[in-house]
């Protein structure tokens, strides 16, 4: 067990650091999570330097590097205030699916621009009646000659409003059991018949969208994988999701530690309150546990092992901790804690934002309950749920009010 870089790793880190110093300075030292143009320019610069999609083959625009190198660059890049969140879903989930299932021409057309940040991709799986039951898809695609015509509704589509392309999972056969009648396509999100409406979240913002399809016509050439074979493709996409989620930020033990050092308790600073200290220690143990678990995952990756569903623990722990930390800081304010004005609250309202955002994080990408089922079934080998819908045609399945 060794936290130190090997010689080769140290060399890579030094080069990455030099490159970042040179390019960040030249490019923009500021933080610009909401400025898409700047984010795209930075992505293009990384691609040119071999630092975009570091583990992908160079022939597809990647860096041809190792998982550890990718981690090292990520650590160094994180010291600068740049943001790549526009590309997370596309490069983390959608484009790998295109690379695995599309023909050569399609790959040549799309992979390069995605790596360079020229084009942004969205993933369109979730539906109002689906949720945890991802395969309960009602959006229909009906064959019409060499085309397919899509009607229906997707929901919780992150970034659809700024994306150029998407991969979409649709039902092509409702007469067979649920998982057997699905097909995957890529499509142009600007195509006629697609309407994108932002979802107003309880936390105030609109990170997600509803996407409505009305007679959207696409070519059969946009199909990814076989007709009615889309579930297997979706599983490929979702396997990559687990690695992408769970590292998301928000406030953590370090933040509330800094806050508590100057916050008023009943008898001096909150940080001197023994009850707070016990709780803080538990959060620290969780956060450090997750950080070190990621180190173990990276070690496995570097040995050529594929990380399994055990990485599901990250989001359960992190999301619940986020809610607890946010609320604890809010409650620590006593009456004052109700004030949500960023100008008047600690960390510019970050704890309050966490309190309102954490419920969503506990749901997105798999609820607490679904993730525990995954751990129980796929890691521990416990029996799966009794599947009353197993052999029934999709159209006969009961639905709610």
């Amino acid at each position, binding site marked *: 067990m060794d936290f130190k870089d090997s010689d080769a790793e140290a060399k890579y880190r030094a080069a990455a650091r030099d490159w970042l110093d040179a390019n960040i300075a030249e490019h923009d030292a500021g933080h610009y999570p909401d400025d898409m143009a700047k984010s795209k320019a930075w992505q293009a610069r990384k691609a040119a330097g071999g630092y975009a999609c570091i583990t992908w083959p160079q022939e597809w625009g990647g860096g041809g590097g190792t998982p550890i190198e990718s981690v090292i660059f990520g650590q160094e890049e994180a010291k600068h205030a740049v943001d790549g969140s526009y590309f997370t879903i596309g490069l983390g989930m959608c484009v790998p699916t295109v690379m695995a299932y599309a023909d050569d021409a399609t790959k040549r057309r799309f992979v390069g621009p995605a790596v360079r940040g020229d084009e942004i991709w969205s993933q369109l799986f979730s539906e109002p009646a689906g949720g*945890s039951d991802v395969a309960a898809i009602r959006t229909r695609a009906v064959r019409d000659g060499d085309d397919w015509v899509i009607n229906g509704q997707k929901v919780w589509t992150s970034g659809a409003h700024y994306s150029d392309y998407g991969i979409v999972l649709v039902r092509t056969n409702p007469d067979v059991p649920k998982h057997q009648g699905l097909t995957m396509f890529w499509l142009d999100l600007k195509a006629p018949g697609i309407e994108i409406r932002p979802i107003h979240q*309880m936390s105030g913002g609109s990170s997600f969208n509803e996407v409505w399809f009305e007679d959207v016509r696409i070519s059969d050439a946009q199909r990814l994988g076989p007709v009615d074979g889309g579930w297997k493709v979706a599983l490929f996409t979702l396997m990559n999701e687990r690695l992408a989620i769970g590292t998301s930020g928000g406030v953590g033990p370090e933040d509330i530690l800094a806050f508590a050092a100057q916050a*008023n308790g009943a008898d001096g600073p909150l940080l001197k309150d023994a009850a707070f200290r016990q709780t803080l220690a538990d959060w620290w143990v969780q956060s450090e546990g997750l950080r070190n678990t990621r180190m173990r995952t990276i070690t496995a990756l570097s040995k050529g092992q594929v990380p399994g569903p055990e990485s599901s623990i990250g989001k359960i722990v992190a999301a619940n901790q986020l809610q607890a930390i946010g609320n604890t800081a809010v*409650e620590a304010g006593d*009456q004052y*804690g*109700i*004030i949500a004005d960023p100008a008047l609250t*600690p960390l510019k309202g970050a704890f309050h934002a966490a309190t309102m955002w954490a419920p969503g994080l506990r749901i997105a990408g798999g609820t607490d*309950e679904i993730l525990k089922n995954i751990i129980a079934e796929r890691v521990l080998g416990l029996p799966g749920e009794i599947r009353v819908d197993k052999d029934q045609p999709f159209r006969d399945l009961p639905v709610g009010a």
Partner: protein
Amino acid sequence: MNFDYSDDQKFLKDEARKFLAAHCGSDRVRAVLDDSAKAYDADLWKAVAAQGWLGAAIPEEFGGLGLGHIELCAIAEELGRACAPIPFASTVYFVAEALMLYGSDTQKVRWLPRIAAGDVIGALATSEGAGPVTARSIRTTVSGGKLTGEKIPVTDGDVADLIVVLARDGLYLVENGVGVTADVLETLDPTRSAARLTFTDAPCERLGTDDGIAAMQAVFDRAAVLLAFEQLGGADRCLDMAKGYALDRYAFGRQIGGYQAIKHKLADMYVKNELARSNAYYGAWALNAGAAELPLAAATARVAASDAYWFASKENIQTHGGMGFTWESDCHLYYRRSRQLALVAGAPAVWRERLVGQLEMRNAA
């Protein structure tokens, strides 16, 4: 021995529920939520006043119905269930209770009838910044009948006519007007309004003779029981919503309410709500009977209710899944209100500390 609402009280409670179902649907709550200029629902306020609820516990000689505190608890439970966007707690649990506890006959005669009639909105101003309110944290002073200081936040401070202000040496009555300025605050629960109040030589009169913190705590003890019933009503509503959704929503061909993880989550909610209800009832008894047990019973009721509402409101969102995270869902109204009610009379941690302090005093006696 009878540890339940009486039949008359049950009738009153049922009527209150029906009335609020008709006059305070979630559309009305949302109308306040979505309009930042709207501090409360003025129509509902008038309707509630017309029902006599504002004066339920105010003696008839001061213009109230003189029913007693158990009846007020029953009303509070229903207001909490409806997430009512009105300054009821500030006016009734804080200011009317403070007047009944500490007011001179002159003060009672002057204010209580107007409160009962809905003509006066009240607010209690204690906090002066982040952290628990203590003797050290209070800088507001009174000199020559003029009060000076800054209070933040003051729930309903922007719409209050009459403000009970905690100064260093005790509680004071201040009429909103001369020497008082209000800045509306952005809060976690926009269905309830709050402000920063700045007092600059504001005319005031003393309320009672108790020491400041002791007087605030005496008011808080009474309010805590009433707030506990609002919290209980809210928590109960969250369980109802979660149960309804769990029965309506299907996943993998089954109602999600059939999965043990959801069943046990809702059972946990039920357990917490029942403990909160039983503790609230005991608090109601202590409040109504003027029992010496009130400080301990109030702390117990408040801690139980705050815990139950937080759990129910957050796990209600989880039970609803993605739908529960949308603005359109009513789940977040209760999540927000659970925060507002947990903090408006001091945070749960402060009440836990007070609870144990009461146990120590009892054992020392």
